């Protein structure tokens, strides 16, 4: 087994070493159900699709993904194992990606466990399963973006609580970046072109088409670029803060 696989497996199993994984899965599944059926008016809409299910994913991820991400590097720094890990024959990049993939896979499992939702909608009607699959993939990509932000912020601190709170705040900003709440805050002092740029960074805006089952290449590229950018920033932060 090579070092990247070994680290991936360790990180993945680490979630299940504490009750964290199970608590997360239960909360995630209960909340997706509650949101879909009560807030999303799944039945009242009388449509054979999962839009009312996917609509709430950004809001679920906003709080749940930071809880998955917070330990990734903060815990390593707190316990000093970051020194152990980065003196093994594994490059910083490999370590960052292995850890990210482990957490992402865990989220993928949580997402996959919502399959009863898919069964329900297929039982009740004849949905476009291709669109549902596309929305699942888009949702996972968006979760990866939330996670990558969390990875970077987790690297800045040795406190998991601080990592969690700051990640939620930053993710909140990116979730709503295309909406007046955030844009108004910038409009006063940023030139219009930059305000446009901020507006184009919103998760909700990029998720708009995805939740309907349309996986636009631009949205895929956007989320992939977010993941790449935040992981890169995370690696720089880890390198920079080693001496602390």
């Amino acid at each position: 087994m090579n070092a990247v696989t070994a680290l991936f497996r360790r990180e993945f199993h680490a979630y299940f070493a504490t009750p964290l994984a199970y608590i997360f899965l239960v909360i995630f599944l209960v909340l997706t159900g509650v949101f879909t059926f009560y807030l999303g008016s799944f039945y009242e809409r009388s449509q054979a699709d999962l839009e009312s299910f996917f609509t709430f994913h950004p809001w679920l991820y906003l709080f749940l993904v930071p809880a998955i991400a917070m330990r990734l590097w903060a815990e390593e720094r707190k316990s000093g194992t970051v020194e152990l890990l980065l003196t093994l024959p594994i490059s910083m990049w490999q370590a960052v990606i292995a850890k990210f993939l482990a957490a992402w896979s865990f989220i993928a499992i949580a997402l996959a466990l919502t399959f009863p939702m898919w069964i329900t909608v297929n039982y009740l009607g004849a949905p476009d399963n291709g669109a549902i699959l596309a929305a699942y993939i888009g949702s996972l990509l968006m979760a990866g973006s939330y996670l990558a932000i969390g990875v970077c912020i987790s690297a800045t601190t040795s406190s998991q609580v601080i990592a969690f709170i700051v990640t939620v705040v930053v993710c909140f900003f990116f979730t709503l970046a295309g909406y007046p709440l955030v844009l108004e805050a910038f409009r006063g002092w940023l030139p219009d072109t930059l305000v446009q740029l901020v507006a184009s960074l919103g998760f909700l805006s990029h998720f708009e088409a995805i939740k309907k089952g349309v996986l636009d290449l631009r949205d895929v590229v956007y989320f992939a670029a977010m993941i790449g950018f935040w992981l890169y920033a995370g690696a720089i932060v880890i390198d920079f803060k080693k001496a602390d």
Partner: protein
Amino acid sequence: MLEIEGLCKRFDEHLVVNDLSFTVQPGEVLGFLGPNGAGKSTTMKMIAGFLRPDAGTARIGGADIVNDTLQAQSKLGYLPEGAPAYGDMRVDRFLEFMADMRSLRGELRRQRLASVVHDVHLESVLAQRIDTLSKGFRRRVGLAQAILHDPDVLILDEPTDGLDPNQKHEVRKLISNMSAEKIIVISTHILEEVEAVCSRAMIIANGRLLIDGTPLELAKRSRLHGAVTLQMKDSGEAVAALQDLPGVVTVENDEALGEITAIGNGSQNLLASINDLVRERSWPVDGVYQKHGRLDEVFRSITREALT
């Protein structure tokens, strides 16, 4: 061979490691001594490839830690300060994980795992989570992971810190057993450890190398090296008579212990002349012995000079 060349590290404006150069050959156990904050751990972190030096480099078996980091790190076993390990893992799972990180496979992996568990005596705690272990066992787990892949170079930052005397003895024995074909660098505060396991000792302070020699050479720099102690009550004449002997610089009289110590300038062997004196005057002496010099005293005087 471990070659350290002009290693420098600066934190903010403070030069923590200042142009450190030395070479260690296989078979040598190098003891790294220095007061807290002297730069010992920082130096070790740079050799292990965790911190990037501001200048200089370290070569581990020819592999440069700055430019060829992974190659160098694969030849190296490192026990960081405080022996960190993943607390949520069982000891056996942790060691298996480290074996995988070191790309050990098949029979070799199985054999190395069994061998370190035996050498470091971890049999009884294999199924325990690391965060439930005592400090001594944690340290041993750290040692086990460092030697797991049978590396050519071992960097151990305070390997016996927090161990009881029996455990210290075990770890020192382990280090001595491995020392024949390896390069081992240990940092320590415990000077008796240097005498027990090291073939070479270095004292650093303020990031600078002050002394490099065998523990014996270091001890010779002690003021007390070659001093002769007489166990007797001073009858009044002894101190004065010793003082008059050629080669004696000072005489210390410890009445509480009932010891008189004649300290020489190092150029003459005092034992013979003092023996003659004792016999000639027939002093009621309970014992006569020669001191070898004490490392802690050398350590104190050298580092104090450097700090002022």
